[in-house]
């Protein structure tokens, strides 16, 4: 939506296309906040923000992109406030900011624990104000590529059925992540990596796909997100002995170390028998009812509804869960991909500002800052070029492909493939990775892809056929899993979210201070590398 607003304001003719209504987007589930060096809670400046982000990325983030993000973030947050975002306030009436993990200052601007919701609402309000045309519940299935340019999208109309080609001089992917590759994820059902797969299928490289972030506090049993804001407000993490175990892993930052560090610490505690039913405990009790009710109301509600635990009285059972894809469609600092006319912004993209580990609060900021930049750039390009060509055969070819799928009556329905994929990714490509497990996962994914070839869609109707769209989503996920495993095998070191304690326990800047790039080679991913862009900061040892 931020990209659409920017493109509209630049004078372009814009339409948004989404498989959900825009306010249903998963950005709305972001709870804790958005990082910008406003300096409202203490002294702060963009350079500290940039350094924290570089260090947090385990030096895999591109420093020029990180500087852009941190320099432009404050202006973007003020703009959201001016548009009406309902931020929480300081005593003197400014936007309130709280401490977040691995940040040198309280930098995370927030709206209680519903920051994402508030921002999605304000963006949608601005979309309504501009009367930007929206194709709601249109499922993007393919990109239209003609003359080596991306010239539109092929989409399935979920409400009425039917494929439609929507021509466009530029297309911006803003489809979010692929957390549904895993069981126990914070991600919505909609987070199936659609944009990554769309780009990948037309030959655009995906970058750093092995870098899947595991959030340290996802609620047991469902994986629902419990915000880092809890720890920002002072919550403790305890093991079965009631010990604040982080003192053995991150003695200085404790609960406010970076997410990869805490997730590994938790997993170690659980693996070594100091967990509680496969969880550790997030203790908020000492914060007091007043503070919990005022600033963490949504968290309390989630704990009570989904785990039956009232954090005022009892600690919350939490564990690491898949949360955010640092990797994604390879773009430059304006969101441009290798393919002319195709852009990407937000979690779907990899610029990269998050490198091997994203800091809490940087994701919302990335969507806003780089959404705006991509929108402006795409509009500029579109206004300077006149033609859109969507070849006639595009729709009929795709319809034939779809007919094969819909006509199939013998075979397996998708859910077992989907569940096996998610379960095995969790087991073999999780917080810790081993060579043999990754190899086995590669084989499992291959076998699942073969089974997927014969998948059956039971619903043959046109109206709200979610059976069909869910089957197509599974196709996206399977390809992305293959990319992730191959990238993970190639990175023979431990960096950020990619932890190989058994064979390559250390970071290896000599050989792997570079991004992985995967493209499609026949029906196998092919791997390439690109150096990290450095400006001011040389790699240092990373401790918290």
């Amino acid at each position, binding site marked *: 939506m931020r990209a659409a607003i920017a493109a509209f304001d630049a004078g372009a003719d814009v339409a948004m296309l989404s498989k959900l*209504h825009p306010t249903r987007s998963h950005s709305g589930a972001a709870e804790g906040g958005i990082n910008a060096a406003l300096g409202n809670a203490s002294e702060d400046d963009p350079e500290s923000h940039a350094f924290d982000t570089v260090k947090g990325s385990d030096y895999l983030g591109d420093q020029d992109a990180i500087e852009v993000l941190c320099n432009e973030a404050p202006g973007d947050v*003020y703009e959201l*406030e001016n548009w009406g975002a309902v931020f929480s306030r300081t005593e003197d009436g400014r936007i309130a900011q709280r401490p977040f993990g691995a940040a040198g200052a309280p930098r995370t601007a927030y709206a209680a624990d519903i920051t994402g919701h508030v921002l999605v609402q304000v963006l949608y309000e601005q979309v309504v104000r501009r009367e930007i045309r929206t194709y709601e519940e249109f499922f993007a299935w393919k990109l239209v590529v003609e003359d080596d340019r991306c010239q539109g999208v092929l989409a399935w109309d979920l409400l009425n059925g039917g494929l439609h080609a929507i021509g466009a001089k530029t297309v911006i992917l803003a489809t979010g992540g692929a957390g549904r590759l895993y069981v126990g994820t914070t991600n*919505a059902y909609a987070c199936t990596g659609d944009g990554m797969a769309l780009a990948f299928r037309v030959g655009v490289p995906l970058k750093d796909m092995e870098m899947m972030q595991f959030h340290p506090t996802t609620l047991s049993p469902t994986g629902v997100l419990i915000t880092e804001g809890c720890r920002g407000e002072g919550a403790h993490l305890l093991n079965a002995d009631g010990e604040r175990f982080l003192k053995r892993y991150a003695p200085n930052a404790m609960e406010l170390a970076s997410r990869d560090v805490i997730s590994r610490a938790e997993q170690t505690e659980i693996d070594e028998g100091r967990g509680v039913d496969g969880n550790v405990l997030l203790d908020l009790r000492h914060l007091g009812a007043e503070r919990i009710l005022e600033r963490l109301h949504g968290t309390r509600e989630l704990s009570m509804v989904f785990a039956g635990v009232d954090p*005022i009285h009892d600690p919350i059972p939490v564990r690491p869960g898949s949360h955010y894809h640092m990797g994604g469609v390879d773009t430059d600092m304006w969101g441009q991909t290798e393919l002319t006319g195709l852009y990407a912004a937000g979690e779907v993209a990899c610029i990269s500002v998050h490198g091997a580990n994203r800091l809490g609060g940087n994701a919302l900021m990335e969507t806003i800052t780089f959404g705006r930049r991509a929108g402006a750039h795409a509009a500029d390009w579109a206004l300077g070029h006149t033609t859109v060509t969507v070849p006639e055969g595009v729709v009929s070819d795709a319809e034939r492909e779809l007919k094969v799928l819909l006509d199939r009556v013998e075979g397996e329905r998708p859910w077992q493939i989907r569940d096996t994929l998610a379960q095995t990714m969790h087991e073999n490509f999780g917080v810790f990775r081993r060579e043999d497990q990754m190899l086995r996962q590669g084989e499992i994914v291959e076998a699942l892809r073969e089974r997927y070839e014969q998948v059956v869609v039971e619903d043959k*109707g046109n109206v709200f056929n979610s*059976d069909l769209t869910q089957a197509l989503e599974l196709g996206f996920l399977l390809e992305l899993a293959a990319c992730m495993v191959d990238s993970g095998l190639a990175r023979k070191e431990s960096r950020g979210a990619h932890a190989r304690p058994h064979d390559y326990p250390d970071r290896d800047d000599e050989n792997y201070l570079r991004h992985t790039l995967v493209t499609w080679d026949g029906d196998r991913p092919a791997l390439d590398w690109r150096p990290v862009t450095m400006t001011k900061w040389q790699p240092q040892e990373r401790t918290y």
Partner: protein
Amino acid sequence: MTEAAIHTEAQTMEVALKIWRFNSETGERELRRYEVEAPEWVTLLDVLDIIKDRVDGTLAYRKSCRMMICGSCGMRMDGAAVLACKTRMYELASAGQVPVISAMGNLPIIKDLVVDMQPFWDKFNAMKPYLQPGYVEPPDGKEHLISQERMNVIHKESLCINCGCCVSECNSMEADPDFLGPQALAKGMRFVGDPRDGAKIERLEAYNSEHGIWDCTRCYFCTERCPKGVDPRDAIAKLGAESIKEGIDRDMGAKHAKWFVKSTETTGWLRETELVPKTQGVVSAIKEMKFAMSLARRGKVPLPVPPHVAEEVGQARALRDIIAGQGRDGALGIVQGERALGRIEHTDSGGARRDAPEVTPGEEPVQRDIGEQPGAPS
């Protein structure tokens, strides 16, 4: 992966549902029963997922976040709107109940549990749901300076996730499909109560027209069924109070409310005989004379003379003076803000229960006096 598949080791139970299936292509409508095995902690949404995966792939419903923030999965269970992802099934299933699941009310059904949300969004859009700047400019090109207390005025309204549960249950909309309805009006209050918005009067004028705030029947079903504690009826009351404060009182509803106040502060009682002419006007009241006479004959209304005065009328006036002295006229008289939210407790089945104690463990419940309430608008 469905959530239900994650924990195969969990204790399972039998869950049965009856679902109203609807096919808009053929017009067929059928109540079908489903029984599945599910982990004990499942929600209604998890059960629907199991049915769709393993029993019937043609079942249609919306879903996305499964953590009650995206607003996709509004539907009815036993005739009352719920978010499927917020509704735990253990209690119902273990009591052997078989709930009936159907699409939300007041919106056309497209397929099974999927409704056409367009009328909902049309009303949302009619509210001009975006900040109209210009009232107060940020002092230094940064953010507006506003106290947290002032923002609390719209805290509950800003929690709305547009799920449609309130609209589904709205009695007034059932009678008048053009009624703006609880969601749109709550969104309206979100801007009327925002000190940054420069279009308060225009908004109140618009929301006071036909199908607007005074058409609400105050049945409180919206507030009862809202899964997020938005309290749309409260928002409508705030809009009414703001309208009267700003002198926008041409509607009979506003006149009615004003007369209640006037009547109680002068005589301490409601003077029903004067209520009708003061609300509807003299001409209209004369037309009601026959009905009024028959009421009077049965002793349902007192005669206008002598005036019906309460014994301790001074108390009523003192009460009014106390309220007036607090400087909380308009919406501020109704605002509960974040404190009210803290009092919404949730049961295992996801239903809301209010008035749980607001205490820190080991401490006595906090008694709050009026001085801690939000002050006058800045």
